[in-house]
């Protein structure tokens, strides 16, 4: 595999779609996602001999892409200050249904989040890391991780509600 371009291309074809979706979740636009995808696959091919066989290969590759995204975040972003959870009012007028939402919609909502909220939401909700692990990865406190997640949840819920209201308005006018 090392330096075997044909084998590398085959591997790229097998995993590029899923990994591009991962990159889109961590990026706010397609260009950034493409850069992340390129960097991630280069890391995969350069370190492919380090795969020990423990766990699935796709999971190992996914971990590389997540780490690459986290590195980008550590280098370029600054975290929002810790917010007292009690002082934040996360209330919405009504429940926001999600069953009608497609993957593209959900992806769009996640991309609309700011970098910090988006990264923590992805790590906690999608990847399944704990707040302790997230705090170590991003070099932040657990309180910051929790508050940012709460904020991300609220914002997503708000987007869903607004999107739902917009859909109903469009339906009413047609």
């Amino acid at each position, binding site marked *: 595999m090392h*330096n*075997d*371009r044909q084998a*590398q*291309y085959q591997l*790229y074809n097998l995993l*590029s*779609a*899923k990994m*591009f*979706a991962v990159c*889109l*979740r961590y990026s706010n636009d397609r260009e950034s996602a*493409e850069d992340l*995808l*390129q960097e991630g*696959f*280069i890391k995969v*091919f*350069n*370190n492919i001999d*380090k795969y*020990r066989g423990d766990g699935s290969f796709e999971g190992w590759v996914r971990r*590389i892409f997540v*780490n690459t995204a986290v*590195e980008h975040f550590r*280098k370029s972003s600054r975290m929002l200050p810790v917010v007292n959870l009690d002082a934040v009012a*996360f*209330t*919405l007028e009504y*429940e*926001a249904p*999600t*069953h009608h*939402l*497609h*993957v593209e919609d*959900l*992806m769009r909502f*996640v991309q609309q989040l700011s970098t910090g909220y988006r990264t923590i939401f992805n790590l906690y*909700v*999608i990847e399944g890391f704990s707040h302790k692990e997230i705090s170590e990865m991003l070099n932040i406190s657990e309180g910051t991780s929790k508050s940012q997640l709460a904020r991300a*949840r609220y914002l*997503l*819920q708000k987007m*869903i509600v607004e999107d739902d209201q917009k859909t109903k308005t469009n339906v009413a006018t047609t």
Partner: protein
Amino acid sequence: MSQQHDFHLMEDRFRDELREASVIPPIAVWEKIDAGLPKPVPFYVRYKWPMIASALIGVVLAGSIWSLQSNDEARLSAFKVHPSAFSVVSSVSDAESVKQYASNSAGDQLTASTSKRQGESSSDDQVLVSAASLRPKVQSSNTSTSSWGNKQLSSPKSIDQKSSLNNRASLAGQSVGSDYLPSDKVSTISDNGFVANMQQSMKAVSSENMLAEGFSADDTYRPKAIPVEPFTYSDDELLQLSARNAGNKKGHKHINVNSGFFMGPVFGYQFNRLTKQTSSPETDNSFLEYRPHFGSHYGLAFGYDFPSRWGILAEWVYSSNEGQRFQENFGDYVVNKSIELDYMKFPLMVRYQQAFLNKQGRNPVILNLMGGLQYSLLRSKNTFINDELALVDQKFNKHTWGLAAGAELDIYATKQLFFTIGMKSAFASSTSGFPRLKGREGNDPMSIQTGLYARLNYRLVPIKNKEKQPEPQTFGQ
């Protein structure tokens, strides 16, 4: 329904849809990846230096083996000396008989010349026929007969008539006068069977005997011979080596050359590799990149070579610098990590010898193949991060066992003193895992070392070997 419950439902929805989502990337992304990957390097470029080094070592070894083996034949030929080459005749008539003898012999051409020693009267006219003048022409084939060639004497002296009669008898081949040339084995000079007979029955001819038989001080017909240096291998021992290499394994199975106890300091340089990246189970260093690690080792070696081809070698390597270097790339931030381990090692190996004759001189070159066990004791451990000592508590095996194998060349300066250069590879594993390559968890750390070393040896020549050295033989007495 609580808001938290709503969040959980929402999160479940996001997780279920986005975790396994797929979005096909643009084609241009692969082209960028292809441009960013290192170009495939042909193996002959990637392994350029190891291939060059291997080729050079192979050429040197092959050339040495070829030249030494081809020289064995010349060495054997050097000792196929016809007894008449040493003979001295004391009268002109004898000289004529020599000529007659020579002309009657088939094959080789002999020339006999006579000359008078200065200051001698005609009645005591002595005609000295030197070995050089009686020397047949050396032919290039293996069936060539004797070549005087390699004996060099100091000032020769003449003998009286009485002694010369014995020599004349030996010339005729009826009575040898010495006890190592049975008459039934003496044949014509050009007889090929003679050559084989000589190989079987000939013993060392000492230069002193040739002196005793009387050679003129006149340089024109004084034969030349190489000086027998002290503490070098005698002719008999060299012949034993040549015969052994020529295939007489049974006849010369037990050879007393290159045997005995030896010892000396050793110094080497090796390439090291730790096969496990993590120094502790809790640390995940799967993204570390290997970097080559080199270290040196030094100590003392002790060995004993038996008269057969076998021997043992034990070493006390006081310090062996091993470890591993890693690098982790965070984009514009690179972390270099170095694990430095110092081991005391105790290899114990078996040696198998193959001796060759040095073309340049009389001392052999021994090729040894070795293999055996090795025990290592950890003396110190340090971890450096970006060249700074890191105060981390990392676990490394204090006691390791392993195997070692290699090849070395012993180059003899004298019988006691020889220099060794060699190459050795070894691996070590934790004592809990040995002899398994992997432990119960399947992930026991192992270390591998491959490198070169040099050793200066001093051999204690046993007394009994000296007693067995051939005594000087005399002709015609």
